[in-house]
């Protein structure tokens, strides 16, 4: 199977597409364990990471992934709250085209930005998060981590807690988990749940204490403090009381269950420090898998050959 030029989202991927990324990522994990963790697959290729929104770990993760594949990497980041200022994305696209890069990793605050860019340049585009739309590599690395722990997605129960409305991570994970056959539920106050989410086939809960014991995977999302200012919940304290992953709540979870978080965590808000560092937590495994998974994504979209 040859992939599409760009990786914009998980919504349009099927189980086979997803497995292809995950299988290759598992292979690259072995490469990363070697004394010299580098392969020549993308030698001579130029990858541009273009980050218009503040992010350290995702950009570093992509950058390391590209270097492990021997690609030349150019990093650009400009945090602009208003993308209206300065050069337009269309101009950016034309400039990239003129400079002949092979691939672009784009982080942008506007939903659809990666698709917009992908339609206008020949280079492949990897969406590293487009506003509140999708964050496909995060979901793929989450799926990779889950698969390592449970082997399969059949009969797997996954609960996502937090600001679903504004979360690209939640969206991408919902699409991916469903494509692979998992049961997906969300838990949050209705103010943080988008309208008609049940149309996506997820279960919706408002009361975390009533359901947390049913799930194999519990994923907490980062809560953005500005959501409180816009009136979507009354206080951080109350959010923690109702939806925080506290030690007491975690004790009720299934014996073999795991806790995930896309990072960076607000310790003491959506997840307590001792929970984040507990043995149920796979947060650092997610980060580690992220490099291997992004190697797989870059490799596949750059048309790399397995030697």
């Amino acid at each position, binding site marked *: 199977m040859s992939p599409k030029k760009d990786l914009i989202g998980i919504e349009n991927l099927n189980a086979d597409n997803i497995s292809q990324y995950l299988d290759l990522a598992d292979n690259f994990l072995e490469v990363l364990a070697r004394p010299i963790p580098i392969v020549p697959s993308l030698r001579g290729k130029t990858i541009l990471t273009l980050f218009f929104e503040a992010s350290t770990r995702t950009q570093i993760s992509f950058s390391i992934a590209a270097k492990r594949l021997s690609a030349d990497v150019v990093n650009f980041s400009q945090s602009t709250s208003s993308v209206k200022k300065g050069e337009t994305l*269309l101009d950016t696209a034309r400039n990239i085209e003129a400079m002949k890069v092979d691939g672009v990793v784009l982080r942008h605050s506007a939903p659809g930005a990666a698709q917009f860019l992908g339609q206008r340049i020949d280079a492949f585009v990897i969406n590293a998060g487009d506003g509140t739309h999708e964050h496909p590599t995060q979901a793929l690395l989450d799926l990779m981590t889950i698969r390592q722990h449970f082997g399969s997605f059949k009969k797997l129960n996954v609960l996502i807690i937090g600001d679903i409305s504004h979360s690209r991570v939640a969206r991408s994970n919902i699409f991916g988990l469903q494509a692979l056959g998992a049961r997906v539920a969300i838990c949050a106050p209705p103010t943080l749940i988008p*309208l008609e989410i049940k149309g*996506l086939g997820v279960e919706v809960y408002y009361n975390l204490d009533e359901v947390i014991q049913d799930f194999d995977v519990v994923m907490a999302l980062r809560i953005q403090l500005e959501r409180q200012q816009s009136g979507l919940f009354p206080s951080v304290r109350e959010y923690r009381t109702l939806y925080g992953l506290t030690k007491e709540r975690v004790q009720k979870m299934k014996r073999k269950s795991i806790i995930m978080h896309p990072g960076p965590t607000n310790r003491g808000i959506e997840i307590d420090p001792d929970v984040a560092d507990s043995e149920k937590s796979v947060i650092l495994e997610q980060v580690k898998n992220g490099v291997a998974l992004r190697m797989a994504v870059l490799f596949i979209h750059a048309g790399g050959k397995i030697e």
Partner: protein
Amino acid sequence: MSNTLLKGARVIDPASKLDAKRDILIKDRKVARIEKSVADKKARVINARDLIVVPGLIDLHCHLRDPGRPDEETIETGSHAAVAGGFTSICCMPNTEPAIDSDGIVNYIYKEAARVGLCNVFPISAITKNRDGKELTEFGELLKAGAKGFSDDGDAVADNNVMRHALEYSRVFDVPIFEHPIDKSLAQDGLMNEGLVSTRLGLKGSPAIAEELIVARDLLLAKFTGARLHLCHISTKGSVELVRKAKKESVNVTCETCPHYFYYNDEVLDSFDANYKVNPPIRSETDRQAIIEGLKDGTIDCIATDHAPHCQAEKEVEFANAPYGMIGFETAVSLVIMELVNRQKMSWLDVIAKMTVNPARLLKINAGNISPGTVANITMIAPDRKWKVAADKIRSRSKNTPLLGTELKGRVRNVIFKGVLKYSLKD
């Protein structure tokens, strides 16, 4: 000047409920005769045998960006686009720069439209000065200059008391208040309809209730004041139901919708194509069906284009940063034919009424019908003609339509304005 004779047309004149083969003789800029067979050896003959002939169409709602944004549209380019779409009378909304809120600007629009001379351009004046939602404009002076209604289009009149006073004051002149029903605090800066599709795409939604809340409020105020309310571009099932109920209670209300609300549903947003970004947003399939139902049962009186030109530089950006609006003059008739006539099997009389006699009555203008003695404004339509929308053929200065490259069916063939052939499709 010589007489013009249309031969063998199927004439649809909703005002007289005429749907039959007729010849039409135009003499001295007026319709002289409509009969089964007219002979006039000296007349210039237009063979209309395969054409549908209707009164020159009337668009209640468009944006000509004049004064203010000549890079997007002017009265001149807008008139060219309108006539190519079959419109001989168009009402331009006042969200220009400066806003249409004084008799001077109304005069300018008439003067410029007369200079261009392709169609009537009727200004809708702002309800409040500078569209600020606070102080009423001089309704009397503006009407004397030729304004045909009042609207702060782009926004609703947010303040309940200002809206009450606008409606009350309009009773002096028996003139309609055109409301753009949207509650800003609920709509926030929503980019598309709030629902399953916005949930999938992560695009911020503008909920149906943001429209319906103002529709409900305005219907209550219209009932309370007894004034004439016209609701612009309604788009939701709830709005249709509210208007239907109000009409049964004899509230003095009319409303319009636009082709994009009966032709599309919000799944088209999957493309992130900013040409689909309009205000109100394209709604769900359930809403679309309800709009069609409202058109069929007469709840919705008029079809308007909400022609809203925007330059490419402003539209070809991230969806969130694009302005709201799509052009509509040149494709409206095709979408009406394809969806309402062909698919929904609405009668030509019912459909054309919503683009001729109904808006004419609302505006109290002497247009929208074909009968002996009236000024000859006539549109001829080739109902089965297929054509492809191409940017270089669009006569509007802006090309912001999602239909570029799409094949449509049904096209305006000829347009006569004040007895003169002003538009003829080049084969």
